[in-house]
């Protein structure tokens, strides 16, 4: 299953090799041309049947948040830092894979019996944590692990509840999966799908890929925050699970193109497909980098709501996935048909 393969693959920002090979394998036969650029983005191209000069770009990022080895102690225990934004509190008591040989390790912590009462209430910081791979000293560890090795969560893809999926890295393997499905069809216009690197550390890959492609219009497909859980006010939910893909209006990195946002939403309404707006404005995604490329690119973003995003156990609803694909399909059809307002800049 595509999403299982993608989420279980490893690809922390800066070390996306495994997930990149998985995606390359999936799309090689579906595209006319594909290449990997100077910082590791996959740029794939399907030539348009009727209007090859009309250029549409879909974008999803391959990288996930994770950790990186920074030091090996004399005891053999491993010190690490985070890559991308991770709340240190989700790290306690988890299993991880380290490096290209996927060495297993655990992020342990002091047993509760041995903690002082005040300790139990304080959150630990990353510099207080370490990973244990079962070795007894520095040399043993150094035989297996290098400084700079990437560390990813060990978290299997599981379907549960009412049509729900739990996996790591739904942000943004879900976007990658959707892009791959889009490549099954043929289009009048030329379609570029970019699978970017290093979004989580600053929208880096997208900046470079968009400069190269410079499309007429771009749509980013993301996994986004969904906080419809106890302890949050309804106006703080950002999105709600199961209520359809979320259309971005504005976030810290970009103000979505108004026509694109409205059109996506209206397509949902007109065709009875569940759809929602993303209601919070913090955070950012690759559209932040894409829309300011060269002379400016009209860009929008559509996202799958994910609870517990940036943790080993992020959760999404399958229906949101299928509905997102439906809406994007109709959107692309619309672009084909009309001279999309202002399309030619």
């Amino acid at each position, binding site marked *: 299953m595509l999403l299982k393969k993608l989420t279980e693959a490893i690809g922390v920002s800066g070390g996306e090799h495994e997930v*990149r090979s998985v995606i390359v394998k999936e799309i090689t036969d579906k595209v006319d041309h594909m290449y990997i650029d100077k910082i590791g983005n996959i740029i794939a191209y399907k030539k348009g049947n009727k209007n090859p000069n009309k250029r549409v770009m879909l974008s999803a990022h391959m990288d996930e948040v994770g950790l990186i080895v920074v030091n090996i102690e004399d005891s053999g225990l491993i010190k690490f830092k985070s890559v991308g934004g991770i709340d240190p509190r989700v790290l306690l008591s988890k299993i991880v894979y380290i490096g290209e040989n996927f060495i297993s390790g655990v992020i342990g912590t002091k047993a509760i019996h041995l903690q002082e009462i005040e300790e139990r209430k304080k959150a630990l910081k990353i510099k207080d944590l370490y990973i244990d791979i079962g070795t007894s000293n520095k040399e043993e560890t150094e035989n297996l692990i290098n400084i700079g090795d990437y560390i990813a969560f060990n978290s299997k893809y599981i379907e549960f509840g009412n049509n729900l999926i739990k996996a790591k890295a739904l942000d943004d393997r879900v976007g990658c999966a959707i892009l791959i499905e889009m490549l099954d069809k043929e289009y009048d216009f030329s379609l570029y799908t970019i699978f970017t690197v*290093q979004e989580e550390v600053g929208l880096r890959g997208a900046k*470079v890929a968009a400069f190269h492609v410079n499309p007429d219009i771009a749509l980013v497909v993301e996994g986004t925050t969904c906080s419809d859980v106890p302890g949050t006010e309804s106006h703080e939910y950002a999105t709600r699970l199961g209520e359809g893909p979320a259309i971005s209006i504005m976030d810290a990195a970009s103000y979505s193109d108004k026509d694109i946002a409205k059109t996506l939403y209206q397509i949902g309404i007109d065709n009875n497909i569940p759809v929602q707006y993303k209601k919070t404005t913090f955070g950012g995604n690759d559209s932040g980098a894409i829309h300011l490329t060269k002379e400016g690119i009209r860009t929008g973003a559509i996202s799958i709501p994910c609870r517990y995003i940036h943790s080993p156990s992020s959760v999404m609803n399958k229906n949101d996935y299928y509905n997102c694909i439906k809406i994007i399909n109709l959107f692309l059809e619309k672009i084909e048909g009309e001279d999309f307002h202002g399309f030619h800049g």
Partner: protein
Amino acid sequence: MLIENILEKLSNVSGVSGSEIKASSLIDEIFKKTCDKVKIDALGNIIALKSGNNRTNNRKIMIAAHMDEIGLMVKNIDKSGFLQFINVGGIDERTLLAQEVIVHGKNDIFGIIGAKPPHLQKKEEQNKSTRMEDLYIDIGLSEKDARKQISIGDFITINRSFTYLKGKSVSGKALDNRAGIAAIIQCMKELKYIKHYLDVYFVATVQEEVGLRGATTSSFNIIPDIGIAIDVGHGRTPDLAKEDTIELGKGPAIALGANIHPKIYKRLVDIAKEYNIPYQIEVNPSSSGTDAWAIQVTQSGVPTGLLSIPLRYMHTSVELANINDIKLTGRLLALFIASINDTDLEEWLCY
């Protein structure tokens, strides 16, 4: 001239971000001795080309070290002739009290940074470090005379002379990043005797401390095939964690992480091992905080690397470095450049 003497001149000259002119003239003069073409771009970056032997390929490597230093700027001249100032780049405001400064107005004017005397302060005030807003510079002139020599916007540097300490250690202001410039100059020296095919663009960048600005525009101009930044990294002292620091005297640190192309990292390590150059590893999970971060996302992307020179007490006026580390950084760089002669760049750097 010995590298330590060059570094002494580089450290003593003033060149705050946005006003690098004096440092720039000195560096320009030195670059012209070894490079074929030297030009200065719109923002003030010095771009010096040392052409490679193999002219048909025209592959370019950009080596960048920022020449600007952190400093201060005059914000206000008050009725009694005291100057209020703001930060340019990240000076640690705790290090300013009782410092001697030079205000670069029509002439260089000597001044002292002062604050309310301790016996007039409340008890709680004494335990807090003084904020920049409460500090002022005393140049010993009336407002009228001050305004004749000094304007709003004049730059200010700490009055510090370069000092030779024991061993191969040296201390001075602005070693961040005149040490990097010195390393580049060392590289230029070594390249005189090594055959290299790549066209090498040595760039002394401006305004790194206020946002990697010079690197952004100069790399757009050059569009290199490879970009290497030389900067300083946090030198270890007992109060700092191992994972955040690198050791003085143990050679340059080769950086690793999202900002660095993994093959460039590996080649630098291999060259260091092959030529017995001591080296260390520095992990940057995301941004390296150096010109390399700007260079990497220029146009359609540039494979980047970074070498860090260990430096204690960064962003103070007593920054401390080891001359050997600087020499070795220059040497490693030169050997790296030469090692690319027979390398097919596309194949090597391919993901």
